[in-house]
């Protein structure tokens, strides 16, 4: 995806938000690219949030579903509004990030106005919600790329992904990654085939231990009634798993087969920490 080849937009995020919200209205006060709906899910109040394409965005580098300036700060507003609304409630509503984000926005306006700060606001909001006791779930229905995923989904207590080739997690698109590491795209793909953290596919990603569960569906782009029931059931099980977990941090992600060095580093730090 670059300037010369044009970009395709994905409607998956909007489709899954529409299905899971059963036609509930979108909350007002957000740009068209940030859809927010409050629903009942598994007997519990939940706020669904998706970043979707807005071909009419005033910011031209964020018209294909990218997470940009408006999206980052608006995500923060949507999450903080839920935190504030539940401040005095014993049971905090779930926050479900529906992730279908091709990338962060790459542009001059974005850097000039501090897109890093916009995405920091979003990441901080999700992390704060998690620490405040909101069960936070990321549901990956399409691409979950780089800074966009860091801002929208990666702070979740649990990450669930549809088992579908269109679901990808990565740090950078192939063309840009090849250029930055001074390799050809072919070389990059060859390494990706043997180095699990470099791979673009979900099966390799699953070996890193970051996914709580993958979900088989019939149509990841246009969920069927069965798909909706399946995903709803898995979301309910994720909520129960979070409720049963005494910890509100991200330690449940550290157990992956291909993440042993992560564990070794933490063990060494802990053993040497006390003066």
């Amino acid at each position, binding site marked *: 995806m670059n300037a010369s080849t044009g970009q395709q937009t994905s409607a998956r995020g909007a489709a899954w938000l529409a299905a899971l919200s059963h036609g509930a209205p979108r909350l007002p006060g957000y740009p068209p690219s940030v859809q927010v709906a409050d629903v009942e899910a598994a007997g519990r109040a939940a706020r669904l949030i998706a970043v979707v394409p807005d071909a009419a965005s005033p910011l031209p*580098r964020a018209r294909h579903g990218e997470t940009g300036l408006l999206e980052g700060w608006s995500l923060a507003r949507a999450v903080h509004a839920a935190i504030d609304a539940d401040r005095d409630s014993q049971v905090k509503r779930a926050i479900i990030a529906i992730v279908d984000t091709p990338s962060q926005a790459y542009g001059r306006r974005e850097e000039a106005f501090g897109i890093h700060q916009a995405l920091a606001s979003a990441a901080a909001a999700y992390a704060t919600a998690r620490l405040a006791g909101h069960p936070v779930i990321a549901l990956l229905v399409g691409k979950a790329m780089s800074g966009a995923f860091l801002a929208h989904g990666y*702070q979740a207590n649990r990450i669930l992904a549809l088992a579908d080739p269109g679901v990808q997690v990565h740090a950078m698109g192939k063309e840009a990654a090849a250029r930055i590491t001074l390799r050809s795209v072919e070389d990059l793909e060859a390494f990706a085939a043997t180095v699990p953290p470099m791979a673009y596919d979900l099966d390799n990603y699953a070996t890193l231990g970051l996914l709580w569960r993958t979900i088989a569906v019939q149509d990841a782009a246009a969920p069927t009634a069965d798909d909706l029931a399946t995903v709803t059931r898995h979301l309910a099980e994720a909520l129960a798993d979070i409720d049963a977990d005494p910890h509100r941090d991200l330690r449940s992600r550290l157990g992956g087969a291909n993440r042993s060095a992560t564990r070794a580093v933490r063990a060494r730090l802990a053993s040497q920490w006390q003066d």
Partner: protein
Amino acid sequence: MTHAALISRESFVELGARERARALLDAGTFRELAGPFDGLTSPWLERQGVVPQGDDGVIVAKGRIDGQPAVVMAIEGAFQGGSLGEVGGAKIAGALELAAEDNRNGVPTRAVILFETGGVRLQEANLGLAAIAEIHAGIVDLRRYQPVVGVIAGQVGCFGGMSIAAGLCSALVVTREARLGLNGPAVIEQEAGIGEYDSRDRPFIWGLTGGEQRFATGLADRFVDDDAVAMRDVVAELVNAPVNAPVNAPVHAPTSDAARSERYDAYLQRIDQYTAHDAIHQPDPAMVRRLYGAQP
């Protein structure tokens, strides 16, 4: 700065990561954890023809700052562009988690992160990204108890997912040599074209993302000379500041006492002002200063 002062000062930018950490900690208190002799090297680089380094480009040092317990995490920009892979990322995330745990146990450990990084190490892509998410989580947790102070001294700057980490810090220190942005110039040019972002136009890039501009627009809190003693003094002041006190309000929000990452409403107002009038025109540094409120 006088000629004599220039001669007598010690550059901070020219120090390596380990020496930078040492320069910030009280004399004689530096103690490195998970160091180069602990056998923690990247398990992913060698098979891609890259020689690993014993510290994986990240130094974690415990010690004291003005007598208070502190941990300094310093990224070595000279190794793989300061990129974060599995091991280096886990060092920073793990240290932040232990510092937060200290605070829950009554030990007021504070933290300093020295950013010198392009972000995710692409040779370890998804494990770098995951570690950076955990670093974000660690900062947001720890900053509830103690300041987490970020420093971007230069010359690599701070990009990618780690620029988001910088945006989460309780306070951010920059020098004239610093750059701060989400996307590196070459990546933007690759993705958006040279008309959008000319990665070889250095004055253009420094004007938008350099330390002076980030300070002037409130996206950083302190602008410090390249002087190791001055840097230590500023960091010591900031790590001893009360938690949640705004250090350099980025947009004029006199009633706000929130961290910069909590001021989303104020930033959205500024972006609305921009898009309401002339989003067709690309912003220049002066426009951003006007919108965000220039420092005197």
